[in-house]
Protein backbone atom coordinates (compact mmCIF):
# COMPACT_ATOMS: atom_id res chain seq x y z
CA UNK A 1 0.00 0.00 0.00
CA UNK A 2 2.80 2.41 0.83
CA UNK A 3 5.75 1.15 -1.09
CA UNK A 4 8.63 3.57 -0.61
CA UNK A 5 9.92 4.22 -4.10
CA UNK A 6 13.08 5.98 -5.16
CA UNK A 7 11.14 7.88 -7.82
CA UNK A 8 11.04 11.68 -7.59
CA UNK A 9 8.23 13.98 -8.76
CA UNK A 10 6.83 17.41 -7.91
CA UNK A 11 3.24 17.50 -6.68
CA UNK A 12 2.50 20.28 -9.16
CA UNK A 13 3.16 17.85 -12.01
CA UNK A 14 -0.15 16.17 -11.18
CA UNK A 15 -2.27 19.24 -11.96
CA UNK A 16 -2.52 19.66 -15.74
CA UNK A 17 -2.46 15.95 -16.65
CA UNK A 18 -5.12 15.05 -14.05
CA UNK A 19 -7.45 17.76 -15.36
CA UNK A 20 -6.98 16.51 -18.92
CA UNK A 21 -7.85 12.98 -17.83
CA UNK A 22 -10.97 14.15 -15.98
CA UNK A 23 -12.09 16.29 -18.91
CA UNK A 24 -11.68 13.28 -21.21
CA UNK A 25 -13.93 11.35 -18.84
CA UNK A 26 -16.60 13.98 -19.41
CA UNK A 27 -16.32 16.28 -16.40
CA UNK A 28 -17.09 19.91 -17.34
CA UNK A 29 -13.65 21.12 -16.25
CA UNK A 30 -12.57 24.67 -17.04
CA UNK A 31 -9.35 26.35 -15.95
CA UNK A 32 -8.78 30.00 -15.11
CA UNK A 33 -5.13 30.98 -14.93
CA UNK A 34 -3.25 34.14 -13.98
CA UNK A 35 -0.15 33.98 -16.17
CA UNK A 36 1.65 31.19 -14.34
CA UNK A 37 0.22 28.27 -16.25
CA UNK A 38 3.60 26.89 -17.31
CA UNK A 39 4.75 26.69 -13.69
CA UNK A 40 1.51 25.35 -12.21
CA UNK A 41 1.25 22.94 -15.21
CA UNK A 42 -2.21 24.31 -16.03
CA UNK A 43 -0.99 25.07 -19.55
CA UNK A 44 -0.95 21.39 -20.39
CA UNK A 45 -4.73 21.62 -20.10
CA UNK A 46 -4.79 24.59 -22.48
CA UNK A 47 -2.93 22.56 -25.08
CA UNK A 48 -5.69 19.94 -25.03
CA UNK A 49 -8.72 22.14 -24.37
CA UNK A 50 -7.91 25.69 -25.53
CA UNK A 51 -11.56 26.79 -25.46
CA UNK A 52 -11.90 25.72 -21.81
CA UNK A 53 -8.79 27.54 -20.61
CA UNK A 54 -8.95 31.23 -19.75
CA UNK A 55 -5.97 33.33 -18.83
CA UNK A 56 -6.98 36.55 -17.10
CA UNK A 57 -3.44 37.89 -17.26
CA UNK A 58 -1.91 39.06 -14.00
CA UNK A 59 -5.22 39.72 -12.26
CA UNK A 60 -5.92 37.27 -9.46
CA UNK A 61 -9.01 39.03 -8.14
CA UNK A 62 -10.67 38.81 -11.54
CA UNK A 63 -9.56 35.18 -11.73
CA UNK A 64 -11.60 34.31 -8.65
CA UNK A 65 -14.70 36.19 -9.83
CA UNK A 66 -14.64 34.60 -13.28
CA UNK A 67 -14.17 31.16 -11.71
CA UNK A 68 -17.26 31.78 -9.59
CA UNK A 69 -19.33 32.75 -12.63
CA UNK A 70 -18.19 29.64 -14.51
CA UNK A 71 -18.99 27.48 -11.47
CA UNK A 72 -22.44 29.01 -11.03
CA UNK A 73 -23.18 28.20 -14.67
CA UNK A 74 -22.40 24.53 -14.09
CA UNK A 75 -18.68 24.19 -14.70
CA UNK A 76 -16.11 22.56 -12.43
CA UNK A 77 -13.99 25.68 -12.21
CA UNK A 78 -10.31 25.24 -11.38
CA UNK A 79 -8.17 28.31 -10.91
CA UNK A 80 -4.50 28.36 -10.19
CA UNK A 81 -1.44 30.45 -9.55
CA UNK A 82 1.31 30.52 -6.91
CA UNK A 83 0.53 30.10 -3.22
CA UNK A 84 1.76 33.60 -2.47
CA UNK A 85 -0.93 35.08 -4.73
CA UNK A 86 -3.68 32.54 -4.09
CA UNK A 87 -5.03 33.26 -1.47
CA UNK A 88 -2.87 36.29 -0.60
CA UNK A 89 -3.69 38.53 -3.54
CA UNK A 90 -7.40 37.71 -3.67
CA UNK A 91 -8.41 36.88 -0.11
CA UNK A 92 -11.49 39.10 -0.03
CA UNK A 93 -12.72 37.68 -3.34
CA UNK A 94 -12.31 34.14 -1.98
CA UNK A 95 -14.07 35.12 1.23
CA UNK A 96 -17.13 36.78 -0.29
CA UNK A 97 -17.45 35.07 -3.67
CA UNK A 98 -16.22 31.54 -2.84
CA UNK A 99 -16.45 30.75 0.90
CA UNK A 100 -19.67 32.69 1.51
CA UNK A 101 -21.33 31.28 -1.61
CA UNK A 102 -20.10 27.69 -1.48
CA UNK A 103 -19.66 27.79 -5.26
CA UNK A 104 -17.91 24.91 -7.00
CA UNK A 105 -14.50 26.59 -7.27
CA UNK A 106 -11.26 24.60 -6.96
CA UNK A 107 -8.23 26.68 -6.10
CA UNK A 108 -4.91 25.01 -6.78
CA UNK A 109 -1.95 26.95 -5.44
CA UNK A 110 1.44 25.75 -6.54
CA UNK A 111 4.89 26.66 -5.22
CA UNK A 112 3.85 26.30 -1.59
CA UNK A 113 6.37 26.81 1.19
CA UNK A 114 10.01 27.87 1.21
CA UNK A 115 11.01 25.08 -1.19
CA UNK A 116 10.23 27.55 -3.97
CA UNK A 117 13.89 28.32 -3.37
CA UNK A 118 15.94 30.93 -5.17
CA UNK A 119 13.14 33.42 -5.88
CA UNK A 120 13.23 34.35 -2.21
CA UNK A 121 10.69 35.45 0.36
CA UNK A 122 8.20 37.29 -1.86
CA UNK A 123 7.64 33.99 -3.69
CA UNK A 124 7.75 31.66 -0.66
CA UNK A 125 4.28 31.10 0.76
CA UNK A 126 4.44 30.31 4.44
CA UNK A 127 1.14 32.02 5.36
CA UNK A 128 -1.24 30.64 2.73
CA UNK A 129 -2.61 27.80 4.85
CA UNK A 130 -3.37 30.16 7.73
CA UNK A 131 -5.24 32.49 5.41
CA UNK A 132 -7.28 29.83 3.63
CA UNK A 133 -7.96 27.79 6.78
CA UNK A 134 -9.48 30.87 8.40
CA UNK A 135 -12.49 30.53 6.08
CA UNK A 136 -15.49 28.34 6.94
CA UNK A 137 -16.54 25.84 4.31
CA UNK A 138 -13.35 25.41 2.30
CA UNK A 139 -11.67 21.99 2.04
CA UNK A 140 -7.89 22.44 2.32
CA UNK A 141 -5.58 19.69 1.07
CA UNK A 142 -1.79 19.50 1.04
CA UNK A 143 -0.72 16.37 -0.84
CA UNK A 144 2.43 14.58 0.26
CA UNK A 145 3.44 13.32 -3.16
CA UNK A 146 2.42 13.33 -6.78
CA UNK A 147 0.11 10.32 -6.49
CA UNK A 148 -1.78 11.87 -3.61
CA UNK A 149 -1.92 15.13 -5.55
CA UNK A 150 -3.55 13.33 -8.51
CA UNK A 151 -6.15 11.77 -6.24
CA UNK A 152 -6.78 14.98 -4.30
CA UNK A 153 -7.38 16.91 -7.53
CA UNK A 154 -9.77 14.22 -8.76
CA UNK A 155 -11.58 14.19 -5.40
CA UNK A 156 -11.93 17.97 -5.53
CA UNK A 157 -13.29 17.81 -9.08
CA UNK A 158 -15.90 15.22 -8.10
CA UNK A 159 -16.94 16.76 -4.76
CA UNK A 160 -19.20 19.86 -4.86
CA UNK A 161 -17.99 23.02 -3.14
CA UNK A 162 -14.85 25.07 -2.59
CA UNK A 163 -11.43 23.42 -2.37
CA UNK A 164 -7.89 24.68 -1.88
CA UNK A 165 -5.04 22.36 -2.86
CA UNK A 166 -1.42 23.33 -2.24
CA UNK A 167 1.21 21.81 -4.51
CA UNK A 168 4.97 22.22 -4.50
CA UNK A 169 7.79 23.09 -6.88
CA UNK A 170 10.62 20.62 -6.14
CA UNK A 171 10.82 16.99 -7.11
CA UNK A 172 10.37 14.99 -3.92
CA UNK A 173 10.21 11.27 -3.18
CA UNK A 174 7.09 9.44 -4.31
CA UNK A 175 5.54 7.80 -1.25
CA UNK A 176 2.37 6.27 -2.64
CA UNK A 177 1.68 3.96 -5.56
CA UNK A 178 -1.59 3.69 -7.41
CA UNK A 179 -3.01 1.21 -4.91
CA UNK A 180 -3.27 4.09 -2.42
CA UNK A 181 -6.74 5.57 -1.87
CA UNK A 182 -6.85 9.18 -0.69
CA UNK A 183 -9.72 9.73 1.71
CA UNK A 184 -11.00 13.28 2.00
CA UNK A 185 -11.02 14.46 5.61
CA UNK A 186 -9.07 11.47 6.91
CA UNK A 187 -5.47 11.44 8.05
CA UNK A 188 -3.54 8.57 6.50
CA UNK A 189 -1.69 6.28 8.89
CA UNK A 190 1.62 5.74 7.12
CA UNK A 191 3.29 3.94 9.94
CA UNK A 192 1.85 2.54 13.16
CA UNK A 193 3.58 3.35 16.43
CA UNK A 194 2.88 3.56 20.14
CA UNK A 195 5.55 5.82 21.69
CA UNK A 196 4.97 9.10 19.87
CA UNK A 197 3.15 10.46 16.80
CA UNK A 198 4.52 12.69 14.07
CA UNK A 199 1.73 14.46 12.18
CA UNK A 200 3.13 15.75 8.91
CA UNK A 201 1.97 17.63 5.86
CA UNK A 202 3.15 17.93 2.25
CA UNK A 203 6.90 17.89 1.74
CA UNK A 204 7.46 17.04 5.41
CA UNK A 205 5.73 13.64 5.16
CA UNK A 206 8.65 11.74 3.65
CA UNK A 207 10.94 13.50 6.13
CA UNK A 208 8.69 12.25 8.93
CA UNK A 209 9.05 8.70 7.56
CA UNK A 210 12.83 9.12 7.50
CA UNK A 211 12.71 10.35 11.08
CA UNK A 212 10.60 7.35 12.15
CA UNK A 213 13.11 4.97 10.56
CA UNK A 214 15.97 6.67 12.42
CA UNK A 215 14.02 6.57 15.70
CA UNK A 216 13.35 2.87 15.24
CA UNK A 217 17.13 2.30 15.43
CA UNK A 218 16.99 3.84 18.90
CA UNK A 219 14.06 1.72 19.98
CA UNK A 220 11.43 4.46 19.64
CA UNK A 221 8.18 3.31 18.04
CA UNK A 222 6.97 6.36 16.09
CA UNK A 223 3.54 6.66 14.50
CA UNK A 224 3.40 8.76 11.32
CA UNK A 225 0.17 10.42 10.18
CA UNK A 226 -0.13 12.21 6.86
CA UNK A 227 -2.61 15.03 7.59
CA UNK A 228 -3.28 15.64 3.90
CA UNK A 229 -6.66 17.23 4.60
CA UNK A 230 -5.84 20.21 6.81
CA UNK A 231 -9.38 21.59 6.90
CA UNK A 232 -11.48 20.29 8.37
CA UNK A 233 -8.95 18.44 10.54
CA UNK A 234 -9.32 14.74 11.28
CA UNK A 235 -9.86 15.33 14.99
CA UNK A 236 -10.52 11.67 15.63
CA UNK A 237 -7.06 10.65 14.39
CA UNK A 238 -5.43 13.44 16.41
CA UNK A 239 -7.20 12.51 19.63
CA UNK A 240 -6.41 8.82 19.10
CA UNK A 241 -2.74 9.71 18.56
CA UNK A 242 -2.67 11.76 21.73
CA UNK A 243 -4.43 9.10 23.76
CA UNK A 244 -2.52 6.12 22.39
CA UNK A 245 1.00 7.53 22.02
CA UNK A 246 0.99 10.34 24.61
CA UNK A 247 3.16 12.79 22.64
CA UNK A 248 2.87 14.58 19.29
CA UNK A 249 5.23 16.44 16.97
CA UNK A 250 3.80 18.30 13.97
CA UNK A 251 5.85 18.98 10.84
CA UNK A 252 4.89 21.46 8.13
CA UNK A 253 6.38 23.83 5.58
CA UNK A 254 4.51 26.84 7.00
CA UNK A 255 4.55 29.21 9.98
CA UNK A 256 3.78 27.12 13.03
CA UNK A 257 1.96 29.86 14.98
CA UNK A 258 -0.77 29.99 12.34
CA UNK A 259 -0.41 26.62 10.66
CA UNK A 260 -1.06 22.97 11.39
CA UNK A 261 0.83 23.15 14.70
CA UNK A 262 -1.65 25.72 16.00
CA UNK A 263 -4.64 23.82 14.65
CA UNK A 264 -3.55 20.45 16.05
CA UNK A 265 -2.66 22.09 19.38
CA UNK A 266 -6.17 23.47 19.62
CA UNK A 267 -7.61 19.95 19.28
CA UNK A 268 -5.05 18.31 21.59
CA UNK A 269 -5.32 21.06 24.21
CA UNK A 270 -9.09 20.88 24.40
CA UNK A 271 -9.62 17.13 23.98
CA UNK A 272 -6.58 15.27 25.31
CA UNK A 273 -3.58 17.38 26.41
CA UNK A 274 -0.18 15.76 25.85
CA UNK A 275 3.36 17.16 25.30
CA UNK A 276 3.71 18.64 21.81
CA UNK A 277 6.49 19.83 19.55
CA UNK A 278 6.34 21.68 16.23
CA UNK A 279 8.66 21.56 13.25
CA UNK A 280 8.07 24.44 10.85
CA UNK A 281 8.82 28.10 10.24
CA UNK A 282 9.17 30.09 13.45
CA UNK A 283 7.94 33.68 13.18
CA UNK A 284 10.35 34.66 10.42
CA UNK A 285 10.83 34.74 6.67
CA UNK A 286 13.50 32.67 4.94
CA UNK A 287 15.73 33.86 2.05
CA UNK A 288 16.96 32.88 -1.41
CA UNK A 289 18.79 29.61 -1.80
CA UNK A 290 18.52 26.10 -3.19
CA UNK A 291 15.50 24.39 -1.74
CA UNK A 292 17.37 21.60 0.01
CA UNK A 293 19.71 24.17 1.61
CA UNK A 294 16.74 26.21 2.78
CA UNK A 295 14.98 23.25 4.38
CA UNK A 296 18.25 22.43 6.13
CA UNK A 297 18.92 25.96 7.35
CA UNK A 298 15.37 26.48 8.63
CA UNK A 299 15.26 23.06 10.32
CA UNK A 300 12.58 21.47 8.16
CA UNK A 301 14.42 18.16 8.35
CA UNK A 302 14.15 14.59 9.57
CA UNK A 303 16.92 15.40 12.08
CA UNK A 304 14.84 18.20 13.61
CA UNK A 305 11.82 15.89 13.81
CA UNK A 306 14.00 13.31 15.62
CA UNK A 307 15.29 16.00 18.01
CA UNK A 308 11.81 17.21 18.86
CA UNK A 309 10.45 13.67 19.21
CA UNK A 310 13.10 12.99 21.86
CA UNK A 311 12.24 16.24 23.60
CA UNK A 312 8.49 15.54 23.80
CA UNK A 313 9.17 11.98 24.90
CA UNK A 314 11.37 13.27 27.72
CA UNK A 315 8.56 15.61 28.77
CA UNK A 316 6.04 12.78 28.56
CA UNK A 317 8.23 10.54 30.74
CA UNK A 318 8.90 13.42 33.16
CA UNK A 319 5.19 14.00 33.51
CA UNK A 320 4.63 10.29 34.11
CA UNK A 321 7.28 10.06 36.82
CA UNK A 322 5.83 13.18 38.45
CA UNK A 323 2.50 11.40 38.38
CA UNK A 324 0.83 14.47 36.89
CA UNK A 325 -0.57 12.91 33.77
CA UNK A 326 -0.56 9.75 31.77
Amino acid at each position, binding site marked *: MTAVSPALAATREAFGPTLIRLAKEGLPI*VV*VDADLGASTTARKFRDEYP*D*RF*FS*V*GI*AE*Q*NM*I*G*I*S*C*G*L*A*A*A*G*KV*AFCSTFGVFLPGRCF*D*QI*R*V*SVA*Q*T*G*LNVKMVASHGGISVGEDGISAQSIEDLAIICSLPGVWVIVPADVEEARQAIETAARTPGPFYIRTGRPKIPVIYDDTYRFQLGKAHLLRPGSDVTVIALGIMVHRALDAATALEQEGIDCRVLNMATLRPLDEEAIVAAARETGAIVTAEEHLIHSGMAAMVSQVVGSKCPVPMGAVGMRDQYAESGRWEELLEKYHLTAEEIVRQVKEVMARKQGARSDGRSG
Partner: protein
Amino acid sequence: MVTTDTIDELTATAKRIRRSIITMLTEAGGGHPGGSLSAVEILCALYFDVLQHDPKRPDWPDRDRFILSKGHAVPVLYATLAEAGYLPVEELMTLRKLGSRLQGHSKINTVPGIEMSAGSLGQGLSYGIGQLLAGRLDGRDFRVYCLLGDGECQEGQTWESFMCAPFHQLDRLVAIIDRNGVQNDWFVNETMEIDPLDAKLAAFGWHVISVDGHDLRQLLDALEEAKGVTGRPTAIIAKTVKGKGVSFMENNPAWHGKAPSAEQMEQALAEIGE
Protein backbone atom coordinates in the same frame (compact mmCIF):
# COMPACT_ATOMS: atom_id res chain seq x y z
CA MET B 1 -40.56 51.20 -30.06
CA VAL B 2 -41.28 52.03 -26.46
CA THR B 3 -44.93 52.95 -26.06
CA THR B 4 -46.33 55.62 -23.75
CA ASP B 5 -48.36 52.89 -22.03
CA THR B 6 -45.17 51.03 -21.21
CA ILE B 7 -43.60 54.15 -19.76
CA ASP B 8 -46.72 54.93 -17.69
CA GLU B 9 -46.79 51.40 -16.32
CA LEU B 10 -43.11 51.42 -15.47
CA THR B 11 -43.44 54.85 -13.84
CA ALA B 12 -46.18 53.50 -11.57
CA THR B 13 -44.09 50.43 -10.76
CA ALA B 14 -41.08 52.64 -9.95
CA LYS B 15 -43.22 54.58 -7.50
CA ARG B 16 -44.28 51.39 -5.70
CA ILE B 17 -40.66 50.22 -5.53
CA ARG B 18 -39.57 53.57 -4.06
CA ARG B 19 -42.31 53.32 -1.44
CA SER B 20 -41.22 49.77 -0.58
CA ILE B 21 -37.61 50.87 -0.18
CA ILE B 22 -38.57 53.64 2.23
CA THR B 23 -40.91 51.49 4.32
CA MET B 24 -38.62 48.46 4.50
CA LEU B 25 -35.61 50.54 5.51
CA THR B 26 -37.62 52.38 8.15
CA GLU B 27 -38.85 49.06 9.54
CA ALA B 28 -35.30 47.65 9.45
CA GLY B 29 -33.87 50.71 11.17
CA GLY B 30 -30.83 50.59 8.90
CA GLY B 31 -29.66 50.08 5.35
CA HIS B 32 -28.76 52.13 2.31
CA PRO B 33 -31.51 54.35 0.90
CA GLY B 34 -29.45 56.71 -1.29
CA GLY B 35 -28.01 54.18 -3.70
CA SER B 36 -31.21 52.12 -3.68
CA LEU B 37 -33.38 55.05 -4.75
CA SER B 38 -30.94 56.13 -7.46
CA ALA B 39 -31.22 52.73 -9.17
CA VAL B 40 -35.02 52.31 -9.18
CA GLU B 41 -35.64 53.18 -12.86
CA ILE B 42 -32.67 51.05 -13.95
CA LEU B 43 -34.09 47.94 -12.24
CA CYS B 44 -37.62 48.77 -13.43
CA ALA B 45 -36.50 48.94 -17.03
CA LEU B 46 -34.59 45.67 -16.68
CA TYR B 47 -37.08 43.50 -14.79
CA PHE B 48 -40.31 44.71 -16.40
CA ASP B 49 -39.21 45.14 -20.01
CA VAL B 50 -35.74 43.86 -20.88
CA LEU B 51 -34.75 40.72 -18.95
CA GLN B 52 -35.77 37.27 -20.19
CA HIS B 53 -36.68 35.79 -16.82
CA ASP B 54 -39.32 33.74 -15.07
CA PRO B 55 -40.03 34.21 -11.35
CA LYS B 56 -41.40 30.64 -11.26
CA ARG B 57 -38.10 29.27 -12.59
CA PRO B 58 -35.28 31.28 -11.01
CA ASP B 59 -32.84 28.49 -12.01
CA TRP B 60 -33.85 28.49 -15.70
CA PRO B 61 -30.43 28.02 -17.37
CA ASP B 62 -31.24 30.36 -20.27
CA ARG B 63 -32.48 33.25 -18.13
CA ASP B 64 -30.80 36.62 -18.43
CA ARG B 65 -28.75 37.35 -15.33
CA PHE B 66 -28.97 40.57 -13.34
CA ILE B 67 -25.98 40.91 -11.04
CA LEU B 68 -26.04 43.57 -8.37
CA SER B 69 -22.39 44.34 -7.79
CA LYS B 70 -23.15 47.29 -5.48
CA GLY B 71 -24.61 44.91 -2.91
CA HIS B 72 -25.45 47.55 -0.33
CA ALA B 73 -28.27 48.68 -2.64
CA VAL B 74 -30.01 45.32 -2.26
CA PRO B 75 -33.24 46.92 -0.92
CA VAL B 76 -34.02 48.10 -4.48
CA LEU B 77 -33.44 44.54 -5.72
CA TYR B 78 -35.62 42.94 -3.03
CA ALA B 79 -38.38 45.46 -3.72
CA THR B 80 -38.12 44.84 -7.48
CA LEU B 81 -38.07 41.05 -7.06
CA ALA B 82 -41.17 41.33 -4.85
CA GLU B 83 -42.93 43.39 -7.56
CA ALA B 84 -41.91 40.76 -10.12
CA GLY B 85 -43.30 37.90 -8.01
CA TYR B 86 -40.12 36.31 -6.68
CA LEU B 87 -41.12 36.85 -3.05
CA PRO B 88 -44.15 38.15 -1.15
CA VAL B 89 -44.22 41.95 -0.76
CA GLU B 90 -44.95 41.53 2.99
CA GLU B 91 -41.64 39.73 3.43
CA LEU B 92 -39.81 42.96 2.62
CA MET B 93 -40.55 44.06 6.17
CA THR B 94 -38.22 41.33 7.49
CA LEU B 95 -35.15 43.02 5.95
CA ARG B 96 -32.04 42.74 8.14
CA LYS B 97 -33.89 40.90 10.91
CA LEU B 98 -32.68 37.71 12.57
CA GLY B 99 -33.82 34.65 10.66
CA SER B 100 -34.91 36.61 7.58
CA ARG B 101 -34.02 35.56 4.05
CA LEU B 102 -33.45 39.24 3.34
CA GLN B 103 -29.84 39.73 4.37
CA GLY B 104 -28.37 43.21 4.78
CA HIS B 105 -26.26 42.75 1.66
CA SER B 106 -27.21 40.39 -1.14
CA LYS B 107 -26.42 36.72 -0.59
CA ILE B 108 -26.70 34.00 -3.21
CA ASN B 109 -29.26 31.19 -2.68
CA THR B 110 -31.31 33.13 -0.16
CA VAL B 111 -34.11 34.90 -1.99
CA PRO B 112 -34.94 33.42 -5.44
CA GLY B 113 -33.62 35.76 -8.09
CA ILE B 114 -30.55 36.86 -6.16
CA GLU B 115 -27.84 35.77 -8.59
CA MET B 116 -24.75 36.43 -6.47
CA SER B 117 -23.45 37.50 -3.11
CA ALA B 118 -22.10 41.03 -2.86
CA GLY B 119 -21.27 43.66 -0.30
CA SER B 120 -17.54 43.88 -0.84
CA LEU B 121 -17.35 46.09 -3.90
CA GLY B 122 -15.80 45.38 -7.27
CA GLN B 123 -16.61 41.70 -7.70
CA GLY B 124 -19.85 41.45 -9.69
CA LEU B 125 -18.57 42.13 -13.19
CA SER B 126 -15.93 39.37 -12.96
CA TYR B 127 -18.70 36.97 -11.99
CA GLY B 128 -20.79 38.06 -14.95
CA ILE B 129 -17.85 37.47 -17.29
CA GLY B 130 -17.51 33.93 -15.94
CA GLN B 131 -21.23 33.27 -16.51
CA LEU B 132 -20.95 34.44 -20.10
CA LEU B 133 -17.80 32.41 -20.82
CA ALA B 134 -19.70 29.33 -19.59
CA GLY B 135 -22.73 30.32 -21.67
CA ARG B 136 -20.57 30.59 -24.76
CA LEU B 137 -19.10 27.11 -24.17
CA ASP B 138 -22.60 25.68 -23.77
CA GLY B 139 -24.10 27.54 -26.73
CA ARG B 140 -26.56 29.44 -24.53
CA ASP B 141 -27.46 32.97 -25.55
CA PHE B 142 -28.49 34.56 -22.26
CA ARG B 143 -27.34 38.07 -21.48
CA VAL B 144 -25.77 39.44 -18.32
CA TYR B 145 -26.62 42.84 -16.89
CA CYS B 146 -24.42 44.06 -14.05
CA LEU B 147 -25.09 47.14 -11.96
CA LEU B 148 -22.08 48.91 -10.47
CA GLY B 149 -21.85 51.98 -8.31
CA ASP B 150 -19.72 54.89 -9.43
CA GLY B 151 -17.73 54.86 -6.20
CA GLU B 152 -17.26 51.15 -6.85
CA CYS B 153 -15.32 52.06 -10.00
CA GLN B 154 -12.48 53.09 -7.68
CA GLU B 155 -11.87 49.40 -6.89
CA GLY B 156 -8.96 47.84 -8.79
CA GLN B 157 -10.81 44.64 -9.61
CA THR B 158 -13.42 46.66 -11.50
CA TRP B 159 -10.69 47.67 -13.95
CA GLU B 160 -9.40 44.11 -14.22
CA SER B 161 -12.87 43.14 -15.39
CA PHE B 162 -13.30 46.27 -17.56
CA MET B 163 -10.12 45.12 -19.35
CA CYS B 164 -11.20 41.50 -19.60
CA ALA B 165 -14.74 41.73 -21.06
CA PRO B 166 -13.80 43.45 -24.37
CA PHE B 167 -10.84 41.07 -24.76
CA HIS B 168 -13.34 38.19 -24.83
CA GLN B 169 -15.69 40.19 -27.07
CA LEU B 170 -18.56 39.64 -24.65
CA ASP B 171 -21.31 41.42 -26.54
CA ARG B 172 -23.98 39.87 -24.31
CA LEU B 173 -22.63 41.83 -21.35
CA VAL B 174 -24.05 45.17 -20.26
CA ALA B 175 -22.43 47.04 -17.37
CA ILE B 176 -24.65 49.76 -15.99
CA ILE B 177 -22.94 52.34 -13.83
CA ASP B 178 -25.23 54.11 -11.36
CA ARG B 179 -23.49 57.47 -11.67
CA ASN B 180 -25.09 59.16 -8.67
CA GLY B 181 -21.95 61.07 -7.77
CA VAL B 182 -21.93 60.25 -4.06
CA GLN B 183 -20.06 57.54 -2.17
CA ASN B 184 -20.04 56.49 1.48
CA ASP B 185 -18.25 59.47 2.99
CA TRP B 186 -18.58 62.22 0.41
CA PHE B 187 -18.93 63.21 -3.25
CA VAL B 188 -17.12 60.96 -5.74
CA ASN B 189 -15.39 63.78 -7.60
CA GLU B 190 -13.98 65.20 -4.36
CA THR B 191 -12.92 61.76 -3.05
CA MET B 192 -11.28 60.10 -6.06
CA GLU B 193 -12.50 61.29 -9.40
CA ILE B 194 -13.42 58.54 -11.88
CA ASP B 195 -14.20 60.79 -14.86
CA PRO B 196 -13.86 60.86 -17.77
CA LEU B 197 -15.46 57.43 -17.25
CA ASP B 198 -16.97 57.33 -20.74
CA ALA B 199 -13.62 57.98 -22.41
CA LYS B 200 -11.84 55.49 -20.14
CA LEU B 201 -14.35 52.73 -20.91
CA ALA B 202 -14.29 53.52 -24.63
CA ALA B 203 -10.49 53.31 -24.54
CA PHE B 204 -10.83 49.89 -22.86
CA GLY B 205 -12.95 48.74 -25.81
CA TRP B 206 -16.49 49.16 -24.52
CA HIS B 207 -19.44 50.54 -26.45
CA VAL B 208 -20.45 53.40 -24.18
CA ILE B 209 -23.88 55.00 -23.90
CA SER B 210 -24.62 57.86 -21.49
CA VAL B 211 -28.21 58.36 -20.35
CA ASP B 212 -30.35 60.07 -17.74
CA GLY B 213 -30.76 57.14 -15.35
CA HIS B 214 -34.20 58.28 -14.25
CA ASP B 215 -35.57 58.63 -17.78
CA LEU B 216 -37.16 55.26 -18.55
CA ARG B 217 -37.38 55.94 -22.27
CA GLN B 218 -33.66 56.74 -22.48
CA LEU B 219 -32.83 53.64 -20.41
CA LEU B 220 -34.98 51.35 -22.57
CA ASP B 221 -33.51 52.80 -25.77
CA ALA B 222 -29.97 52.30 -24.47
CA LEU B 223 -30.70 48.70 -23.40
CA GLU B 224 -32.20 48.04 -26.84
CA GLU B 225 -29.17 49.59 -28.52
CA ALA B 226 -26.90 47.30 -26.44
CA LYS B 227 -28.64 44.22 -27.90
CA GLY B 228 -27.53 45.29 -31.36
CA VAL B 229 -23.86 45.78 -30.50
CA THR B 230 -21.60 42.98 -31.69
CA GLY B 231 -18.05 42.06 -30.74
CA ARG B 232 -17.81 44.14 -27.60
CA PRO B 233 -19.66 44.75 -24.35
CA THR B 234 -21.79 47.79 -23.65
CA ALA B 235 -21.44 50.18 -20.73
CA ILE B 236 -24.41 52.37 -19.89
CA ILE B 237 -23.40 55.31 -17.74
CA ALA B 238 -26.65 56.25 -16.04
CA LYS B 239 -26.53 59.75 -14.58
CA THR B 240 -28.68 59.55 -11.50
CA VAL B 241 -29.48 61.42 -8.30
CA LYS B 242 -28.59 59.70 -5.06
CA GLY B 243 -31.72 59.46 -2.90
CA LYS B 244 -33.92 60.28 -5.94
CA GLY B 245 -37.52 61.12 -5.11
CA VAL B 246 -37.04 62.18 -1.50
CA SER B 247 -36.03 65.85 -1.23
CA PHE B 248 -34.01 65.65 1.96
CA MET B 249 -32.10 62.60 0.78
CA GLU B 250 -31.30 63.81 -2.73
CA ASN B 251 -27.59 64.34 -3.41
CA ASN B 252 -26.86 64.29 0.31
CA PRO B 253 -23.96 62.01 1.40
CA ALA B 254 -25.54 61.68 4.85
CA TRP B 255 -28.21 59.40 3.32
CA HIS B 256 -25.84 56.82 1.90
CA GLY B 257 -26.33 54.43 4.76
CA LYS B 258 -28.99 55.33 7.31
CA ALA B 259 -32.67 54.64 7.73
CA PRO B 260 -35.41 57.28 7.94
CA SER B 261 -37.31 57.86 11.17
CA ALA B 262 -41.08 57.30 11.26
CA GLU B 263 -41.71 61.01 10.59
CA GLN B 264 -39.16 61.11 7.81
CA MET B 265 -40.80 58.05 6.29
CA GLU B 266 -44.18 59.85 6.21
CA GLN B 267 -42.63 62.86 4.49
CA ALA B 268 -40.76 60.64 2.03
CA LEU B 269 -43.90 58.65 1.13
CA ALA B 270 -45.85 61.89 0.68
CA GLU B 271 -43.21 63.19 -1.72
CA ILE B 272 -43.06 59.94 -3.69
CA GLY B 273 -46.85 59.84 -3.92
CA GLU B 274 -49.27 57.00 -4.58
